[in-house]
């Protein structure tokens, strides 16, 4: 029908302001470094460089903005971009899997939103409109949805504006109390690392030498070692715990505030975020596997996280969408029902790997320690403290062995592993892409084999793996599971 669609719409002008403001911190932080490299020039010259840089980047953004346009046809979306070499991209509505919206803090202030058009191919930024007004984003989504609904079922009820759909009953939602509770379990000391990094960077500019941690240690050595320093150590520990808890709550609040998962006609839709507000749709047909994880502490309180592994769509090779950030087992079941996956069976239904796996961990970790401890002891006076790790060789492999297992029910494979962060992967056999059996020298000597399952959208670095199965069982599973 529509042969030529005019690309006559532009991005929201606030895009320019957002780009400029986003760049600002880079420039401000870059100034001391620039001054250092340039050497002995006045503050004026440095500021001049900064101003030129800002104008340059703003000019580029302006040029890009003026050469970027898009248009919406009857059946397709057209995007024209490129400053020198022009590119006209046509995305047929039939190929669009879904439309995600993302609003960062600045975007929310300006009332605009990034629109991501997701198609089947796994390329990066297939169709990204950064940014359009919120109303325009809703219009785009509705036009595309309506077309798809009509194409699918003829007499589909016209989807209403975004607000109306958000009122669909939630599959899972977190109120503020739940978010705060989740934050307490997300104890994190990442804040300290940030302070440390900032210290590296700014340390030379801070004149107060008392802030240097090395001096504190020196003072500690000189000063009396008694009840006072013990109290000080306890106080420091308390402060660390407090910082960790506050950091955890703050991060969780920023990420999971207003968490809400609903069902749409083609997938699951998730809204969350306090500052950066995201609105993501996970198309059902792209879901490959589900992962239920928990923590060493929260497990005892019955809290879990559900993530869905889906075919890469955000440009990264693996995508895990959190579908329920902090949920009871009873809340996870209904979500899994929607995507036709069963809940995992109880721990005793899982078949364990070979007990000889414990010896493999001990021999491999023992060999590492046998080298590392003498070296550390030689170069560092406290290096011999690493000897304290040796008893762990007896305990940790047992815990890992007990946490690891696999089973199969009704064409669905379950694999559980992990001590500190126990996880259960739920994978339908039909989603297995390939299977590899791997045996290194030690495993061959012990009669063990690891089975690695290739899944789409999984992590390349840590694929789904059943470690140290008995050789014969591993061969049986290899053949069995590859039969679809």
């Amino acid at each position: 029908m529509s042969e030529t669609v005019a690309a006559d719409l532009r991005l929201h002008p606030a895009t320019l302001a957002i780009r400029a403001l986003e760049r600002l911190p880079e420039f401000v932080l870059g100034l001391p470094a620039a001054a250092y490299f340039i050497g002995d020039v006045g503050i004026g010259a440095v500021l001049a460089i900064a101003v030129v840089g800002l104008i340059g980047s703003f000019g580029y953004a302006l040029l890009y903005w003026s050469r970027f346009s898009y248009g919406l046809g009857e059946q397709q979306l057209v995007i024209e971009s490129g400053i020198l070499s022009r590119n006209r991209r046509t995305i047929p509505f039939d190929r669009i899997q879904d439309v995600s919206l993302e609003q960062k803090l600045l975007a929310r202030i300006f009332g605009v939103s990034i629109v991501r058009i997701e198609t089947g191919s796994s390329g990066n930024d297939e169709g990204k409109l950064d940014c359009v007004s919120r109303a325009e984003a809703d219009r785009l989504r509705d036009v595309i949805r309506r077309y798809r609904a009509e194409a699918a079922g003829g007499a589909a009820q016209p989807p209403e504006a975004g607000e109306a759909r958000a009122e669909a009953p939630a599959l899972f939602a977190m109120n503020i109390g739940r978010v705060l509770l989740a934050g307490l379990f997300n104890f994190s000391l990442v804040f300290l690392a940030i302070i440390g990094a900032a210290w590296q960077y700014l340390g030379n500019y801070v004149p107060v030498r008392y802030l240097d941690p090395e001096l504190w240690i020196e003072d500690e050595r000189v000063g009396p070692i008694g009840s006072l320093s013990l109290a000080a150590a306890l106080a420091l520990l308390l402060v660390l715990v407090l910082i960790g808890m506050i950091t955890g709550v703050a991060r969780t609040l920023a990420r999971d505030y207003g968490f809400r998962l609903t069902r749409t006609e083609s997938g699951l839709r998730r809204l969350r975020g306090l500052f950066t507000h995201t609105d993501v749709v996970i198309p059902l047909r792209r879901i490959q596997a589900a992962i239920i994880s928990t923590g060493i502490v929260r497990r005892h309180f019955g809290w879990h996280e559900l993530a869905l592994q889906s075919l890469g769509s955000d440009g990264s090779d693996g995508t895990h969408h959190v579908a329920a950030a902090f949920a009871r087992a009873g809340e996870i079941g209904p979500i899994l029902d929607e995507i036709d996956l069963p809940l995992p069976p109880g721990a005793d239904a899982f078949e364990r790997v070979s007990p000889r796996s414990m010896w493999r961990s001990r021999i491999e970790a023992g060999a590492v320690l046998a080298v590392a401890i003498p070296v550390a002891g030689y170069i560092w006076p406290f290096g011999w403290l690493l000897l304290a790790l040796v008893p762990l060789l007896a305990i940790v492999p047992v815990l890992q062995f007990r946490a690891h297992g696999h089973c199969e029910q009704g064409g669905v494979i379950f694999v559980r592993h992990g001590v500190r962060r126990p996880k259960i992967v739920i994978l339908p056999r039909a989603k297995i892409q390939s299977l590899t059996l791997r045996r290194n020298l030690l495993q061959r000597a012990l009669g063990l084999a690891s089975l690695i399952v290739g899944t789409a959208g999984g992590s390349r670095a840590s694929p789904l793996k059943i470690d140290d199965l008995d050789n014969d069982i591993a061969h049986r599973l290899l053949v069995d599971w590859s039969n679809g």
Partner: protein
Amino acid sequence: MDDDSEPQVALTALDPGQKWVMRVRALLTGLVPTAVSIAADFVSEEQLGTPFGYLSGLAIALYTVAAMGLPGRRFRRWGYQMGEGAIRIACGLWVRRETIVPFARVQHIDVSRGPIERAFGVATLTLHTAGSYNSTVVLPGLAYDDANIIRETIRSHIREDSP
């Protein structure tokens, strides 16, 4: 111990030409490191007065093993088997790997030949899957005609599976 209690299935060996491909590749790969070692040995004798011969001898010994001894053993560990609905590929001298790719999971197939492979009449078959692990599974050292036959077999299965 259990070491060679291995394949319960009979694997097809690669084309003998592949053994020579592997040898030539090992010869080429080792050329520069060996030459550098000998040169370093020479310079070290000139400048520091170390005795000539130890480093060079070691380098040449390693080169000989890597180019003459190992390729043959690695070659023998390679094998494949075309099953009803899947291909099984085994390889690895120290770390043994056995991979099964169901035909229905193959996204696309490459048959490629480099200059050395052309000289010995073999080709490499590469299977692409949608998995992020094993996104490409490689089977080198097939006679060129065999590679094409295998490709056609797998392709016909793909067509049957997705109407």
